[in-house]
């Protein structure tokens, strides 16, 4: 039982994390009881490329979407969909029909009433050619018809059972935009002050490159059950200032020029934790963990033993500690540990066994060594290439790659070639199959949506190039199963096969978001399940 102590350790780590989470509660009371009024400035890292939620594509923009827009459903902390603008849903046993009764008395902030016709207008718009191709082709792939049953009931009919439709209804892309905006907005796809929703705030100013300004929607009275209060938002106004440099964000917070920031890199965290007037909170994102996917379509990773050797050659904990100073959470599976679909059994079940790595490589015939100390076979070096597209490198993943590079060279003589290139060059490497390692994490609220893209033989970013009928079956079963327990079973089997059995993927860490805030700010929360900073609805500022 050599696995046992490790597993206990992992449990202890989880408990320690839970401890951290509760420890922040007393600090939250430093801001006193919620009070209405006041204005806040929040410095964020990313300026959204679009303000139209239907076109949403940046997890970092999610905290903005829910200020002025809302969806039919949302997620609770356990990852279950719960009512929001819809009061619930009924599914037929064949999983093909979803009937959603809608909340009454809801109005868009331009005065248009929210009803079944509005929902139909949104879904029809989403499927209009050229409007939102990604949503139409992936999330609404199985949607056949949308029917207005009565003014406050809508019925969706699918062509195949697909529980991910619930995830769509809880997603930013499924947010409800006023039908009037859909018809009349000047730049519908870019969004802006004339594209409105039903949310607790109204966007009234957008200065590109600088800031977004929201004011309270005084008539708001339909908060989701996951919020900590009801009625209108506490704050009168909130400004989101775009500050792309983390050092500038942290400086602005310590100088009290802003009250909240998000995106605090490991190196800056001591500045926050060492300041009694500031508070740091972090939460793991949903979706898929940051993982190295191994390309099985050609040598050397077409050999299972080499894939296992790569996995064993790396001591993930040591590498994470050196790059992130113990602020990163190790991932054991391709699914984020915060997801209800996460398979805990993988924890401590593999990795870091250098002797095994070398044995496996010897067996696979990589027995030679060249002058630089790398393994060779038939005179060819054991080289694997990792291509990173610069625009998508975050969390110092380029530095992490260098640490991995050094580790696998030292422990097993593997030559990991890392190149950080522009997006076009990266795309070219993927198209021409000139890579062996692909790194990725996805922030989908339902990990199943991420796994469909990454591991299905027809997936849009299946860069392992695996075509495994058993994986496809498990993914399809997971998408069709309406019973959560049966779904979890499918995805657990899938994770075992992908990570443990086939060593297709080497999970590294679970991406997290951080919020640093002045202790005068109350109600700082993360969105349940998604694990990204929540909207400004529950925020208040002490007098």
């Amino acid at each position, binding site marked *: 039982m050599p696995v046992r102590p490790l597993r206990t350790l992992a449990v202890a780590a989880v408990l320690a994390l839970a401890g951290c989470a509760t420890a922040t509660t007393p600090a939250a009371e430093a801001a006193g009881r919620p009070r209405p009024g006041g204005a806040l400035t929040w410095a964020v890292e990313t300026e959204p490329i679009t303000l139209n939620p239907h076109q949403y594509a940046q997890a970092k923009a999610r905290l903005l979407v829910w200020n002025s827009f809302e969806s039919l459903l949302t997620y609770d902390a356990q990852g279950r969909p719960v009512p929001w603008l819809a009061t619930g849903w009924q599914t037929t046993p064949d999983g093909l029909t979803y009937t959603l009764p809608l909340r009454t008395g809801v109005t868009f902030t331009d005065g248009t009433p929210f009803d079944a016709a509005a929902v139909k207008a949104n879904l029809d718009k989403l499927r209009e050619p050229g409007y939102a191709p990604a949503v139409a082709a*992936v999330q609404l792939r199985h949607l056949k018809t949308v029917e207005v049953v009565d003014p406050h009931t809508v019925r969706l009919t699918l062509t195949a059972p697909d529980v991910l439709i619930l995830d769509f209804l809880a997603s930013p892309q499924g947010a409800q935009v006023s039908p009037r905006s859909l018809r009349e907005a000047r730049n519908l796809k870019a969004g802006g002050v004339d594209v409105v929703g039903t949310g607790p705030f109204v966007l009234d100013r957008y200065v*590109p490159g*600088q800031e977004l300004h929201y004011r309270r929607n005084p008539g708001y009275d339909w908060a989701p059950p996951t919020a900590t209060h009801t009625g209108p938002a506490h704050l009168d106004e909130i400004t989101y200032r775009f*500050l792309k440099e983390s050092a*500038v964000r942290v*400086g602005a917070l310590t*100088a009290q020029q802003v009250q909240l920031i998000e995106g605090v890199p490991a190196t800056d965290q001591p500045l926050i934790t060492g300041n009694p007037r500031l508070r740091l909170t972090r939460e793991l994102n949903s979706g898929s963990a940051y993982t190295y996917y191994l390309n099985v379509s050609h040598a050397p990773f077409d050999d299972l033993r080499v894939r296992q050797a790569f996995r064993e050659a790396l001591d993930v904990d040591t590498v994470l500690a050196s790059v992130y100073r113990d602020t990163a959470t190790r991932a054991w599976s391709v699914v984020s540990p915060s997801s209800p679909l996460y398979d805990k059994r993988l924890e401590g079940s593999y990795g870091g066994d250098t002797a095994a790595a070398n044995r496996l490589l010897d067996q696979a015939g990589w027995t030679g060594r060249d002058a630089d100390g790398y393994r060779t076979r038939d005179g060819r070096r054991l080289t694997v290439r990792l291509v990173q597209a610069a625009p998508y490198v975050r969390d110092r993943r380029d530095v992490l790659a260098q640490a991995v590079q050094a580790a696998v060279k030292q422990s097993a003589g593997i030559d990991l070639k890392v190149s950080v290139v*522009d997006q076009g060059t990266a795309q070219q490497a993927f198209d021409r199959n000139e890579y062996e390692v692909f790194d990725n994490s996805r922030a989908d609220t339902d990990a199943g949506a991420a796994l469909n893209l990454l591991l299905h033989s027809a997936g849009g970013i299946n860069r392992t190039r695996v075509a495994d009928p058993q994986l496809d079956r498990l993914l399809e079963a997971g998408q069709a199963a309406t019973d959560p327990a049966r779904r979890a079973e499918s995805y657990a089997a899938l994770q075992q096969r992908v990570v443990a059995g086939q060593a297709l993927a080497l999970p590294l860490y679970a991406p997290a978001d951080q919020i640093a805030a002045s202790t005068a700010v109350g109600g700082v929360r993360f969105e349940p399940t998604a694990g990204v900073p929540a909207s400004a609805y529950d925020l208040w500022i002490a007098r």
Partner: protein
Amino acid sequence: MSLLRAVARRVAAGLVVLWAAATAAYLALLAAPGNTVDSIVGDGADTPQIRAQIVTEWGLDRPPVVQYLDYLWRLAGGDLGRSYLLQRPVAEVIGEQLAPTATLAVAAAGLGVLLAVVVAVGTTGRRRRWPRRVSSAAELLLVSTPPFLIGIVLLSVLSFRYGLFPVAGDQGPAALVLPTLTLALPIAGLLAQVLRDGLDRALDEPFVLTARARGVRERAVLLRHALRHALLPTVTLAGWLFGVLLGGAVVVEQVFGRPGLGQVTLSAVTSKDMPVVLAVVTLSAAVYVLVNTAADLTCLLVDPRLRRS
């Protein structure tokens, strides 16, 4: 009449430069790896259907030559096209970012030139060895320090530490101070060196001796006679100055969270947002032509010898 012809020749040359710049940018983007569909798809979902839709929506199925001619035709008509990524007309994207960058650039250029003249004049002359050494060292330091670092240092000290100026945004004159300083200091550093060198050389000229012999005071010699000579090489640096301002704006706007063309350019280049990149290049070329023409005219104004030839 000949003046009119000279101006016409300049305008024609300017148009050729514009066309060459627009074409070069177009070819460079065409030759860059990866295609436009990839950048529109980005990190999002990616299926053959999505790709086909994007191709038809943006007219990417037409041959590159047709796309190029179409682009030139629309450019001639003042239509800069639509941004793929931002889903907005390019003219609108650039138009709303033009003012903050122009304000910053004019303020920085003005301050840079002013500082350079004051420092150079103040430290030229035989009895000013120590001020001169100190300012030379400071100039060298400023010229060789990346603007990014200057910006962060200014922010940490003057904004975060002493709270004299707000950190970010385009919120009135106070917020303009630090970004302007960041951009102006390296400019002042280089201009001051060039200017002082010019002054030194002018002071060795016989006409200075004549002036001094006439009993003109040293200050007047410096300002009325030597400075005029020394200005010529400085004015010809205007083109360089414009390049520094544009490049510096990218960094400064990023550090200070200011809106502006720099940010637009940066994000358009990294995401291969062709219409925006092309528009920025064409616009820069246009301003460059304007600045250089203005510099030539200024030279005529400063140096009467040039007017005769």
